[in-house]
C-alpha cells in the first residue's frame, strides 16, 4: 500500500467505464462472482483475458453480506466435507494474498444435541468421515460441555460436539479483499450494472445486455447471481431446481465478547453466536418453512418471538437488547449442495456457480477457483465433477444432511 493510503483502504475497485468486449463476463458481484474474479487474478488468467464483473447493486448486496459470516469443514457428505476443507484453506489465505484483513476468528462450532440417537449418529460420522479427513470434532458428554462452556445453558441437551477447525469471517471485508485483489490485476468490476439478459446466437453465448447500458460482448459468461440466477437462466429456457428461501437473523447490542463458538442446536439447525464486534446473533427455525421469496426486508414476528425464546434458552435474556433483525436468502438445491459449471446441453459458453444452499460464503473461495479453471482451460477439475448441473437429471445427488439456519 502506498504512503498516500492513510487508511490502508484499497482504492475502490470499481470501474465506471465498461469495455464493449470482454473474454469473460461474471454476472454477480457477490461471494461466488468475486471469488471467481479473485481466482482469475490469482491464477494469472486476468493477464491475458479481459474479465468483467457485473453487479446490479453494491458489491455483496445479496446473500454475500446477509449471513452469519461463518465457515466450517464439517458436512455429512464426503464431497462437501472435502470441498469445505479446500475452501477453508483458501479463506485463511485471503489476508496474506490481498493485504486486506477480513477478521477471521477460528472460534469453532459447538453442536448441541437434544436426542441420544442424533448425538450418536454425529459421533459415528466423526469417526467414519471427519477423522479420516483429518478434521475430527471433539465429542463430549453434557457435564464436560458445561465445564468447557459455562456461559451456555446446557439444560435439555444430552451431548455436545466441538469443531475447532471452524470459524468466522467478516463478509464485508471479504468482499473488499476479493474485489480489490481482482481489480488490482486487471479485472473490471462494475457495481450498479444490472445484467438484464444473456444474449445467445446459434446456441452460443454472445454477450450480456446491461440494463440501460447496452450490450457487452463475451463468449463466456458465468451466472453467479445468487437467487437471481434462476430468472436469468429462465430467459434462455433453462431451469435449475433451485428455490430462494428467506432466512432471518436477530442482532443485539454489542456486549463483551464471551461467545467465540457458533452454537448450534443440531436437531433444529437453530443457532446463537456473537460477532467480533460483540453483537449476539441468533435465529430459530420458526415458523416451519420460511417463505420462498426474493424480497428482502421484513421478517416474521412469530420468528422473532421464537428466536428471543432461543436466546433466552441458550444464553439467558437478562439485559439482552435486540437492536435489529434482517433477512437474506438460501438458494436451496434439492441436495443442499452447490451447482458449478455447465450442462453440455446449454448454449456454448454458459456457466453457473449457484445453489449454495446457505454455504455460499464458505464454499465460494474453492468454487470460484474450480469455475475459473473450468471456464478458461475448458476442462472440468476432478473436485468439480460431483457438482455439475447435470447431476439432477442423472440422479447423482450429493445428499447433504448438515444444514444450519
Amino acid at each position: 500500500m502506498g504512503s498516500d493510503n492513510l487508511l490502508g483502504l484499497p482504492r475502490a475497485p470499481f470501474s465506471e467505464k465498461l469495455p464493449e468486449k470482454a473474454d469473460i463476463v461474471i454476472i454477480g458481484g457477490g461471494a461466488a462472482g468475486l471469488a471467481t474474479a479473485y481466482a482469475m487474478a490469482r491464477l494469472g488468467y486476468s493477464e491475458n483475458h479481459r474479465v468483467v464483473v457485473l453487479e446490479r447493486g453494491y458489491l455483496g448486496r445479496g446473500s454475500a453480506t446477509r449471513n452469519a459470516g461463518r465457515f466450517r469443514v464439517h458436512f455429512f457428505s464426503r464431497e462437501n466435507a472435502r470441498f469445505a476443507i479446500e475452501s477453508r484453506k483458501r479463506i485463511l489465505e485471503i489476508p496474506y494474498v490481498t493485504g486486506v484483513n477480513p477478521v477471521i476468528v477460528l472460534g469453532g462450532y459447538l453442536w448441541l444435541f437434544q436426542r441420544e440417537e442424533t448425538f450418536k449418529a454425529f459421533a459415528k460420522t466423526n469417526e467414519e468421515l471427519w477423522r479420516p479427513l483429518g478434521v475430527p470434532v471433539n465429542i463430549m458428554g453434557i457435564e464436560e460441555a458445561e465445564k468447557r462452556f459455562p456461559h451456555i445453558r446446557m439444560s435439555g441437551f444430552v451431548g455436545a460436539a466441538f469443531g475447532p477447525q471452524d470459524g468466522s469471517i467478516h463478509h464485508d471485508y471479504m468482499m473488499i479483499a476479493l474485489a480489490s485483489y481482482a481489480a488490482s490485476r486487471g479485472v473490471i468490476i462494475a457495481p450498479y450494472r444490472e445484467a438484464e439478459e444473456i444474449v445467445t446466437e446459434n446456441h452460443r453465448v454472445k454477450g450480456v445486455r446491461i440494463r440501460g447500458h447496452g450490450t457487452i460482448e463475451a463468449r463466456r459468461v458465468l451466472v453467479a447471481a445468487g437467487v437471481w440466477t434462476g430468472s436469468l437462466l429462465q430467459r434462455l429456457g433453462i431451469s435449475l431446481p433451485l428455490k430462494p428461501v428467506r432466512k432471518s437473523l436477530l442482532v443485539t447490542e454489542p456486549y463483551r465478547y464471551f461467545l467465540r463458538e457458533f452454537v448450534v442446536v443440531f436437531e433444529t439447525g437453530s443457532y446463537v453466536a456473537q460477532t467480533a464486534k460483540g453483537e449476539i446473533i441468533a435465529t430459530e427455525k420458526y415458523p416451519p418453512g420460511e417463505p420462498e421469496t426474493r424480497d428482502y426486508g421484513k421478517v416474521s414476528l412469530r420468528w422473532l418471538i421464537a428466536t428471543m425464546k432461543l436466546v433466552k434458552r441458550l444464553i439467558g435474556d437478562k439485559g439482552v437488547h435486540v437492536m435489529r433483525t434482517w433477512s437474506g436468502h438460501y438458494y436451496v438445491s434439492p441436495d443442499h449442495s452447490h451447482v458449478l459449471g455447465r450442462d453440455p446441453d446449454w448454449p456454448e459458453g454458459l456457466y453457473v456457480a449457484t445453489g449454495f444452499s446457505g454455504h455460499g460464503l464458505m464454499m465460494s473461495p474453492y468454487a470460484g477457483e474450480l469455475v475459473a479453471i473450468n471456464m478458461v482451460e475448458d476442462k472440468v477439475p476432478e473436485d468439480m465433477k460431483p457438482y455439475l448441473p447435470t447431476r439432477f437429471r442423472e440422479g447423482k445427488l450429493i445428499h447433504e444432511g448438515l444444514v444450519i439456519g
Partner: protein
Amino acid sequence: MESPETVRIYEVTGLTRLMSSLWVLAASESLHGWPARRIPLSSTLLATSVLGLEPYVGSVSNDSGELRVETVSDRVVVVGSSLGGVVAANELRRAGIRVLVISNGVRDVYGLLGLGEEGEYLKQLAGIEPVDGYYVGLYDEGHAFVASDTLYVTRGPVVYAAGAEQPPPIALNNDLPGIVSANYGAEIVAELGYRPRRVVVLGYGYLAPRVADWLASRGVETRLVALKGAVPEKPEKAELVETRGVKGFAGENRVEAVVLEDGERLEADMVVSALGIYPDSPPVYAAGYPPIYVGDCYRFVPELPGPGTDIAERGYLVAAGMAIGYEWLDAVIASARYAAALVAYSMKRIGEGDVEHFYSELREALGKRAKYCPRVSRPPIWLSGEISGLQFIDLDEDLVLYHVYSAWSKGYRTMETLKRATGLGTGSDQGRFSAASSAIILSAISGIDASEIGLFRPRPPYFAPEASLLARAPTEW
C-alpha cells in the same frame, strides 16, 4: 374535517427552540485540503463493548407474566401522543375512524418540549387515551407494538407521529482528546483500569442512563447530560443534568468541559457519547423503506406523497410531522392532518376533495417555510467553519470525518459502499446520525445530491426490546 379548536389552543402556546444555535455547514472549500494530522486507532473492532451482560441490566424489567396478543386491524394506530399524534388522532376520529394511540409516556415529551398540562388538556379535547407502549416494527404479520401486557398487531394503517430524534449535541471542538464512544469509554475503564475523575455522558436514548450508571458504579463521578424531559429512564447512580442543548466542548489540548446551551460549563476529563440506540424515527431512513413521509424539505425524503398515494404500497405506514422543526407549528399540524387524511381517504371515509384540501394546506405551510429551507436542512452534526483537526462523525464507531472523506476520495461513493469501507453506521445506532451527517457533508463537498448518496435501510425493531420482553409472547395466535 375542519380545523379543530384544539389546534388553535396550541398555536398560541409559546414554544422555544430546543437547539437555538444552529451551526451552519462549513463552506465546501474549508473541507477541501483539510489536513489530516492524526488518525486515531479505529475502535471499530477493538472497542468491543465491555459492558458485559450483567452490568448492562437497566431498570426495565419485563420478565414476568405472558404477553397476550391483540389484533387491532380494525383500528388505525397512531404512534405518539404529542402534537402530531393528537392532531392526527383527532382528525381520524372526526372522520369516524376508531383510533388506538400508542404512547411511550416518555416520548410524549420528546419532541414538543414537554407538553405537560397543556398536553393533557389537548388529549382530553381530542378524546384520546393513549396506551403506553413501543412500536417494534413492521413484520409479515403486520405492524407490532408492545405495551406492558399486550402485543398489539395490526395490518391496518399506522400514523407514525412519534417525533424525529433530536440531533446529537455534538458541535464545536468534538475533536478534543477525551471525547469517546460509550464502547471505548467503558473499555478503557473496565479493561485498562483507566480512572477518569469526572465523566459527562451525553445522550438521551436507551443506552445513556445505563452507561452512566455503569460508570458511576465503578466509582467515577458521572453526570448524564440529556435534553430536558427526553431521557427515557432516569439514571440511578449517576447525576442527571437536563439541558436545553449542548453548545460544544471546551479545553486546551484535551477536553476539559462540556458547555451547555445556557453557557454553563460541566467540568469533565472524559466525555462519553452514548447517542447510539437504534433509530426509532423511520423518516430519516425513508429512502430505503416505504413509509410515506409527510414532511418538510429534508433532502433524504422522497417527494411529498400526493393525494392519490396508495398507502398499501408503503406498508400502511404514514409518517406525520417529523423533521418539520419545532418552531413550525403550522407545518406540524398540517402534516398531521394530511397524514390522517391520507389514511381516512384510503378507508373511503373522506372524499378526494378533502384530501386535496389538506394537501394544499400542507403545501402552503411548507411553502411558507421553503424560503428558510436551505439546500441542506438541519444537518444532524453541525460543523463550524473553523475545523482544524479531526471531526468525529460517528461517535458510536469512533470514526472521524477524515475516514469517511478519504474513502469517498478513493471511490466509495454511495452510503452502502462507504459503510463497508469505513464501518460507518455499523455501531449500535446503525448510522442514525452519522449516515445523514456524512451524506450531507459529502453532498456539500461534491455537489452530488445527498439523497443520491443515500442512507441505510432501516431494519426493525425500531425500539430495542429486551429479549425477555417478546420471549413472553406466544408464537401461536
